[in-house]
C-alpha cells in the first residue's frame, strides 16, 4: 500500500540495533499505517522496547525509519507519542496529576502554580479518559490502570501521528483492561493515528490489533492478526512448548505462557 491510501505510514527497513557488540535487533522490516492498531509481540528480551526506543530516536540504530505523509496531511517530522509501561516514582513524590500535565503544557515554572489554560486542558483530557477525579491525586499513588490512562491522556495532548504504548494493560485487572481497550478504540476512531502497542496479552492483541509484528531479536513474521497468530509462528517466537493458555471460559482471558512459565 502507498502513503496516499493511508494519510501516513512509518516504514521501518532493515533496522538493526547493537549494544555492546551484541545485535539486539537485526534486520527488522515493518510498516505502521495511519488508523491501524499494530501489536508488537514477542518473549522477554525480544527487543520490543528497543524497537520503540529506535522509533523514538532514543537508541542509535542502522537501517532506515522513514515517515511518509500524504501531501494534503501537512508535512514535517511526525509527532510521536509514547506511553511508558510504568514510572519509577516514590509513592510520596510531591507531584499531582495536574502538576504532571503542567510540566509539559506550560512555560511558567510549576512552583508558581498551574495556569488557567493548563487547568482547562488537563480537566478536559482527564474527562475524556474517564479519570477526571484524579486531577489532584499524587502521581506516585495511582494504580496501574489509573496511571495508564493519565499517561495516555497526556500523550494525546500533542495530537500524535504515531502513538507507542509499552505494555498498556500490564498490572491492570480484567475490568480495567476492558475499559482501557474500549477507550483506546474510541480515541483511535476519532483521531486516526497509527498505534503500536507492545503486549504480552494475546487476548488484547486478537481483539484489538489489526496487524501483528512478531519479534524475537529478528522479525519472526508480520501481517494481519488472524493470519499471523498461528501455532507455528508462536512456536518460532516462544519455543516449541509454547501454547495459548486459556483461563476459565468466564473471563475469556488468554495469556501466552512461554518456556519460563510466564
Amino acid at each position: 500500500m502507498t502513503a496516499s491510501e493511508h494519510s501516513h505510514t512509518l516504514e521501518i527497513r532493515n533496522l538493526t540495533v547493537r549494544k555492546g557488540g551484541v545485535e539486539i535487533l537485526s534486520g527488522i522490516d515493518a510498516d505502521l499505517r495511519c488508523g491501524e492498531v499494530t501489536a508488537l509481540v514477542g518473549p522477554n528480551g525480544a527487543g520490543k522496547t528497543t524497537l520503540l526506543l529506535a522509533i523514538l530516536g532514543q537508541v542509535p540504530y542502522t537501517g532506515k525509519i522513514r515517515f511518509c505523509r500524504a501531501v494534503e496531511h501537512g508535512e514535517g517530522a511526525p509527532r510521536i507519542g509514547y506511553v511508558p509501561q510504568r514510572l519509577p516514582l516514590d509513592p510520596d513524590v510531591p507531584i499531582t496529576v495536574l502538576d504532571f500535565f503542567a510540566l509539559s503544557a506550560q512555560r511558567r515554572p510549576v512552583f508558581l502554580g498551574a495556569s488557567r489554560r493548563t487547568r482547562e486542558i488537563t480537566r478536559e483530557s482527564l474527562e475524556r479518559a474517564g479519570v477526571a477525579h484524579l486531577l489532584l491525586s499524587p502521581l506516585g499513588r495511582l494504580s496501574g490502570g489509573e496511571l495508564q490512562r493519565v499517561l495516555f491522556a497526556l500523550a494525546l495532548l500533542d495530537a500524535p501521528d504515531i502513538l507507542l504504548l509499552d505494555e498498556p494493560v500490564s498490572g491492570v485487572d480484567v475490568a480495567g483492561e476492558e475499559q482501557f481497550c474500549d477507550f483506546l478504540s474510541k480515541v483511535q476512531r476519532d483521531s486516526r493515528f497509527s498505534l503500536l502497542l507492545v503486549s504480552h496479552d494475546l487476548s488484547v492483541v486478537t481483539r484489538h490489533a489489526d496487524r501483528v509484528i512478531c519479534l524475537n531479536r529478528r522479525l519472526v513474521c508480520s501481517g494481519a492478526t488472524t493470519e499471523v497468530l498461528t501455532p507455528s509462528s508462536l512456536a518460532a517466537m516462544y519455543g516449541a512448548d509454547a501454547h495459548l493458555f486459556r483461563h476459565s471460559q468466564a473471563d475469556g482471558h488468554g495469556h501466552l505462557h512461554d518456556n519460563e512459565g510466564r
Partner: protein
Amino acid sequence: METILSGVFALMDRLLPFAFAEPAFMKRALLALLLTAPAAAALGVPLVQHRMAFFSDAIGHSAFTGVALGVLLGISPSWTMVAFGAVVAVAITLVKGRTELSSDTVIGVFFSTVVALGIAIISREKGLTRNLQAFLYGDPLAVTDAELLWMAGLFLLVCAYLSLLYNRILLLGIHEGFARTKGVRAPAVEISFALVVALVVTAAIHAVGILLVTALLVIPAAAARNVARGAASALWVSVGVAALSGFAGIVASWYLDTATGATVVLAAAACFAVTALYRASRPRE
C-alpha cells in the same frame, strides 16, 4: 561592592536590633546562610526526586580535594574548590550516561578516587591540615565579602535557572524517555542541573562544611515531602524550612556557643521531625 554590603548591614541593624546581630561577622554569617540555604533547598526538591543525594555528597567531598589542589598550586582554595566540584559533577554525569553501571556505583568510584587524591596531596603537604578544618566543619563566621557577593550572584543564578528549567528537570525525573518525547533535551538538562548543584554545594560548604553540606539539600526537601500536596508547595515549604533553620540555627549557636553550621543542620533536622510527626498524625489518603 563595599557600599552595597554596608547598606545591607545598616538595614540588618534596623531589622534585627539584637545582641547576636551586632557584630559584623554575625551579619555576614546570617547573610551567607540566608543566601545559600534556600538556594540549596530549592535545588534539593528535584535532587531528591532524581535520587541524587549521594551525588551531592560526592560533590561535597570533592571540595576536599579542590581545597588541597588550591593550596598546592598557590591559588585561593575557595575558587579551586568551585572549579574542581564543577569538573567532577560534569564527569560523573557524562560517565553515568555512557555505562551500564548503576549511578550509585559510578558515583562511588568517583567519590573514593577524588577523596583519595585529596588525602594523598594533604599527606605530602604538611601544615595543610589546619587550612582544611574550616572547610570540613564550615565557618560562616569567617565568610569574606567576596564570598558573600559570589553567594548573592549564585542565589540569583539559581532563581533564574529554576524559573527557566524547573519543569523540564522534574519531567526528566519522572521518566526520561517520556520527557524526551515532550521535547526535553535530556543530556543537556541533566548536565546543567549537575553543574548548578555543584556550584551551590561548594558555596554552601562555607556555611556548614563538607561533612554536612548534603543536609542543606536533602533535609528541607525531605521535610517538604512530609507536608506538601503538590509541586508548588513542595518547593516553597523546602525553601521556608531552609530559611527558618538557617536563621534559628545561627541565633541558637550564638547563645549556646556551638558550631554554627552544625547548629543550622540540627535546626533543619528538628523541622523534619515536626513535619514527620504532622504527617504521622494525619490520616493517610
